[in-house]
């Protein structure tokens, strides 16, 4: 836990258009072990603006982890993923695709676009909470990320 405390709260960007899912994810993260700060954007265009600190996001914090839904208005998750992964300043941020789809072609496509992992949202609440917490746990306590990803 020491690492997180040194860096302050873990910054998470949630790209999700369904308020129900946003709330659920927030609830799950609230129950998590790690102090975190969740920013939410509702479509792909907003997501990229947030990451590039454009317009109203000029003061946005650079996230440590992106939770990305695939089916989004304006610009869908696959396009957002593709743009993140070709942008040298963004591509090191881990992107976890969190979606309802269990379709084989979606899984293939997102890994082709260099997603860091693909997770299908479970229907059961207990399962969902468990999985969100596992994501948080894995990326912030188990996995080692390059230092300097996030400005100190």
């Amino acid at each position: 836990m020491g690492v997180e405390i040194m860096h302050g709260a873990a910054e998470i960007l949630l790209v999700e258009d369904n308020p129900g899912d946003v709330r659920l994810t927030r609830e799950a993260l609230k129950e998590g072990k790690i102090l975190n700060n969740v920013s939410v954007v509702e479509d792909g265009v907003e997501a990229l603006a947030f990451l590039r600190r454009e317009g109203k996001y000029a003061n946005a914090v650079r996230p440590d982890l992106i939770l990305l839904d695939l089916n989004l208005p304006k610009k869908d998750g696959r396009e957002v993923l593709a743009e993140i992964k070709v942008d040298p300043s963004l591509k090191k941020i881990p992107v976890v695709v969190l979606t309802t789809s269990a379709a084989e072609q979606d899984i293939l496509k997102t890994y082709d676009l260099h997603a860091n992992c693909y997770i299908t949202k479970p229907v059961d609440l207990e399962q969902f909470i468990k999985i969100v917490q596992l994501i948080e746990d894995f990326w912030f306590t188990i996995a080692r990320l390059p230092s300097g990803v996030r400005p100190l």
Partner: protein
Amino acid sequence: MLEARPLATKDSPVKIAVEALKEFSMSKRTRDHRAVSEMIGSLWTFLPQGGSLPADIWNKRHRFLLGLAWFHAVVIALLGPLVGYTWELSLSAPFRDGTVLHTVAEGLIVAVFAVLGSYGGASRAVRATLVGFGLISSSAILVHLSGGYIELHFHFFVMLAFLALYQDWGPYILAIVYVAIHHGVVGVLWPEDVYNHSAAFNAPWTWAGIHAFFVLWASVGSIIAWRFNEAALARAKLILDVAGDGIYGLDAEGKITFVNLAAARMLGSEVKDIIGKPMNQVVVQTMAEGSPSPDSASPILLTVQDGTPCRVTNEIFRRKDGTSLLVDYVSNPIFERDQLTGAVVAFRDVTYRKRTEEELAKKAQELARSNAELQHFAYIASHDLQEPLRMVTSYVQLLARRYKGKLDADAEEFIAFAVDGATRMTALINALLAYSRVETKGKEFEPVNCDAVVDSTLTTLQAAIAESKAVVSRDPLPTVMADATQLGQLFQNLIGNGIKFRGVESPRIHVSSERNGKEWIFSVRDHGIGIDPQYADRIFVMFQRLHTKGQYPGTGIGLALCKKIVERHGGRIWVESQPGHGATFYFTVPQVKPDREEERSWA
């Protein structure tokens, strides 16, 4: 359609005579005479009708006999100079024996008949009779020139033999009547011009009768041969005419030599209007874009020219009235003693078949499209239905979690029902999704080891097996051509059902297989509650359930899914059971993929 028809409609003199005889006999109302009339009737049906030779064959024979007549005309004309007759030139010379002009005049008589017989406007019977007149006359002339030399009378019989080629009554009647009248009249006036013996000189008409009788007798023999020949031809023609396909023949110049009724009907013409015409006047083949094909492009004419047989499908034949028909045809060369003499073409109107094929293809296409749409719809629907459902489930659960202990018993129960409903809905949607994926997401068939599939299914069902203390056993299973994932789903559903519908004892389930001809029969046997045989078919229909959800939970899709999977693999599924005595589910899998060649065996 098949009843025998008279071969010619024209009334021949013989027919008239026979009819008259019949009339005569019928007028005597006695049994004997009726018997005679019946005899004459059967004689009449035996007699050949004439006029049955195909035009091309008749024409060929006619040309030959014309040639024979001309040959006689020339030989007779040349006899005078050859024998050394006098070159006397006077008006009376042609009428006197021993002059060159006389033989020339006799030759001319034969030549006149040859010329008349060549006239195409006359009927076949008339032309045959004219040529017959020429040939029989040449016999009479030769007898006369020889001075009644009796052996030259053989010449009449030679001519009669040749005239048999016409297969018609005219030449026979002519020959008999000619000999009777000629021998009688000339025998009376100039006996030495026909006979060379005194018996004949004394009774010319008796001897004319004797000669005519032999001509008649020879004719009878020849007519019998003709009759059998005609019967054979009639049978061939009958076969041609009852054939459903159009058949016509061509000679080496591409002219139509014969045509059957079906061909004439399909080409919108009469048989007689087609025979003898060049094919391209009757049948116009059309190029794909509608313009008439040049003769050089016609495979049929190619067959006529170099003997190449051909088979053509979906060709357009245009009738003379401009309408057209779509045909398949074959064209085969006719070889006579290695000599290409023409072709036979058989064609079939495929307009109706083509239309049916097109309609069928269209329907199949529509069906495939609507099927694909439906599959897509089912997939999308089940997919997009998940989203709101997850919201319902999650938030009801969140409610229960957050307010645990703060709500009364009713509220807890309502929440439990809501969660249960949503959970079942999810199971239903997942089952529907699986069902719709059987076709859309099915994989190529490959050799699948069923032992491994069943073993991995048991791993998946581990929790249920442990919970129910089930004993699942299996015999060694074969390798079959299948989609391994779907085969796994199949076994999982069947074994899962065996566990679910257990009786009071812990479930015992056995999986086995046996070979039955070209397929494998798999069976999954349990000792559970069984099924009333009257429901044996219903259980495979989607959403058909035999129990309340309280007794045995489930979506009502499992066995429908099993059926769909088995059917995709080209097999059948059924159940044998008695209530209370367990159930055995059987399904078959072909030993090879249905559309692969038979030789491949994966057993």
